[in-house]
């Protein structure tokens, strides 16, 4: 039955063209990330060459090219920013539509006239979101691999492909967290706008507010894959840094930087330790969604706008 509910939900997203819109947006994100990475890298190498020529004319020695130490996957680091920025909002919408549509369209009442448990219903919806997000991320992975091939003029190594796969697996988990935020808020209220805006408020807190509290990261600094380190020696941070493991956006960015090798290496156990809070919060939200679905009154349909 979980499969049937999931298949129906995927079909519904396809009929509403939501699936196409999400797929196109994600593919555009991957393509833009590739183009920006390629274009900025190419320009910066030329800027460096120009600087070397200028310094040589003055008889000065040029410093080492700061890009020589950049790993091959660094050109895709913009994608790591687009996932929490655009991807998370799209995942919120996927989660929101999963339940809000059934409420406003009255399908919920129809579904529960059959012998379907609330847990099965929620798991079916979660499976549908998982499937949709997995499909779009696999497509993004293919675009990423193609970008690497075009820019480097050679087939990416197995190691780099594995790292790319690891990054997209992490991105999937992170997006599932936000799909569940969308589902949970849709189950908490019958007002669609309140549900959607509450989910966005939650996203704002996780994406911008928590990193500010735990690491002093200014909002715009969160948008650039390369940001200057922030002094966090204040007493304030000594206290708030304890909550840093729960700042899931920071943990996602740190883990993806390690996977893409754009940050100094660390042990695999430490990187897994960064992923655990994301998995924990996702699991917690799944439990909350199931409880909320159990209490929900599906005898009334037609959600408020």
């Amino acid at each position, binding site marked *: 039955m979980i499969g049937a509910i999931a298949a129906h939900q995927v079909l519904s997203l396809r009929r509403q063209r939501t699936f196409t819109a999400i797929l196109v947006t994600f593919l555009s994100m991957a393509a833009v990330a590739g183009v920006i990475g390629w274009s900025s890298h190419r320009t910066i190498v*030329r800027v460096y060459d120009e600087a070397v020529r200028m*310094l040589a004319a003055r008889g000065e020695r040029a410093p080492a090219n700061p890009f020589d130490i950049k790993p091959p996957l660094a050109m895709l680091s913009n994608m790591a920013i687009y996932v929490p920025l*655009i991807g998370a909002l799209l995942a919120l919408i996927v989660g929101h539509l999963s339940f809000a549509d059934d409420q406003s369209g009255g399908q919920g009442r129809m579904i529960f006239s059959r012998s379907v448990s609330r847990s099965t219903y929620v798991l079916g919806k979660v499976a549908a979101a998982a499937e949709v997000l997995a499909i779009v991320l696999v497509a993004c992975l293919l675009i990423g691999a193609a970008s690497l091939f075009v820019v480097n003029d050679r087939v990416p190594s197995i190691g780099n492909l594995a790292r790319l796969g690891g990054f997209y697996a992490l991105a999937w988990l992170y997006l599932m967290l936000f799909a569940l935020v969308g589902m949970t808020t849709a189950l908490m209220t019958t007002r669609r706008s309140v549900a959607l805006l509450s989910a966005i408020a939650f996203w704002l807190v996780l994406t911008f507010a928590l990193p500010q509290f735990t690491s002093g990261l200014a909002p715009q600094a969160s948008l650039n894959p390369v940001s200057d380190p922030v002094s966090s020696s204040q007493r304030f941070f000594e206290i708030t840094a304890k909550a840093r493991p729960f700042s899931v956006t920071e943990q996602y960015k740190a883990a993806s930087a390690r996977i893409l090798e754009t940050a100094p290496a660390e042990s695999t156990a430490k990187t897994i330790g960064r992923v655990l809070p994301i998995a924990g919060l996702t699991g917690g939200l799944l439990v909350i969604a199931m409880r909320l679905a159990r209490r929900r009154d599906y005898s009334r349909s037609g959600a408020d706008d």
Partner: protein
Amino acid sequence: MTDSTGTGFDSAGRRVITLAHHEYRSALRSRIVAILVAILVVVTAASVYIASTAYRSKLADYEAYRSAAVAGGLAKIAPSPLRLLSLLEGAVEYLGIIGAIIGITLGYLSVSRERTHRTLPLLRSRPVSPGELAAGSALGALAVIITLVAATAVMAVLGLGVIGNDWVDGAQVGRLVLIYGAAAIYMGVFFCLGAIATARASIAVNGLMFALGIWLIVALILPQIGDTLDADNQVPGGLFAALSLNRADETTVLKKFTTYETIRRDIEEASFSKHFERFAFAMADVHEKYRGLTVSELLSEKHNDIIWLVVYPLVLGIALVVVFRRMPLLT
């Protein structure tokens, strides 16, 4: 709302004010607006607190240096490199992101409230023109925005004084008025966007989603792309600093990349949020380039951003009146 005693202009004005009152009270009663405002206030307080704490110790260091220099009879004392208003950088960025969402939410609620409660046909059965309805909604929302912006500004100034141990002077108050005035206009533009998108959509929540999509592009994606394409932002600490190049060298090198720089700048120019941010940052002394300029020099330097800050509200304000005029009574 009806009035027959005053002149036409008087009664129209009174109707607009009554509608604005209604809008103001309804917005303040909204729980979701309260949640978004609470988030904005908390993050603003945190960013000012963090910046002010660091500033306080730097200020103490400078004062110690100054006292020692005076005691030692030093003829030339280096001026303070600290800029108090630059501590508002984070607060301005939050207004750019969360303030815009609050504006959209106010616009959305303004239209959807009348639709959900089916009060629009009732309102239009009274002698209220679509223009008055648009003006009343916009005026009420602007009052909410001004209240919120003023509260944020007062909180920031108190934070600078109490935590940063430095109080703003008269000239800085003038700059703050310009920064927060621009913030109110900026949020007002997003109010219009939210109201227009909702009024045009057959299902109100789809209008909200559309407006949020525009916000995402304008407030986050375009500035992000422009920022990422900036050669200097590719290396922590700055590419030109890593290559030991000064400002003049940087300008000379970048002259060879005019097409790239033009494209990058045009991408940023397309973002209304970037214009607000550039204007506010210049007034707040965030970038060294503008430090030392008077307010009139800054206004002249930032005339391009000012033009955008005037044109957008005008265009969207007119669009709001047009959309309200065409809005179906029953949906």
